């Protein structure tokens, strides 16, 4: 299945886009698979991505989180609110 991974802030600026389409297995795909695909598609971001957290459906999620069709996945790099 295809998931569009959302990018924000400096990561989005460096990637030059606000989302990256990623293909993962329909069954049993986890956030770790999404991260591996992201690193493959955007190798020049790999170093930055290593320190980013991932969020699924608006909450931070661990690497073992199972991904389902329609999940909203986002890369949350170093934030700077306030």
């Amino acid at each position, binding site marked *: 299945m295809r998931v569009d991974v*959302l990018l*924000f*802030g*400096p990561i989005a600026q460096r990637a030059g886009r606000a989302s990256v389409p990623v293909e993962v297995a329909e069954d049993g795909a986890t956030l770790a698979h999404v991260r591996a695909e992201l690193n493959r598609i955007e190798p020049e971001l790999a170093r930055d991505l290593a320190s980013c957290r991932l*969020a699924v459906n*608006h*909450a*931070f999620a661990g690497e073992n989180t199972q991904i389902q069709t329609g999940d909203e996945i*986002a890369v*949350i*790099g170093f*934030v*700077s*609110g*306030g």
Partner: protein
Amino acid sequence: MQSLSVSIVDAPLAANTATRSLAGAGAVVVFDGVVRSLEGARSITGLRYETYDPMAQHVLTALAQEALDKFGLMEIHVEHSRGLVAAGECSFRLRIASPHRREALDAMDWFIDRMKQDAPIWKTPEFSTDGDAPPPANPVQPEPEAKVPS
């Protein structure tokens, strides 16, 4: 009796017009984060805030609820800007009411720390460029500022 709100609003936050707090509050503390006009050594016209809105709302609401419970607060109201906020304008406001001072100040510290770690909000400085704008009317005006709000 508790009260909680989280608002992410376009552009700068208006002056604080809070209404009276809940009965029983002995301490009401309002924190305003204001955009400073220097970023490092460079003058900036403002900060542009990008928010991942549904998640920012979710994270800030969860932190506000945790603060209410953890510190026994009566009220917590959070406002954060999205978009451009000019130097000198307010981009973040936190209002906390509690029975006593200690909880309000501790909760304020805790909330801001956690927000800065977890809320999906990013800021980008907008630098002044020569010729972009006329020089200030009074060039003698001292500007001892440093970085962005903390």
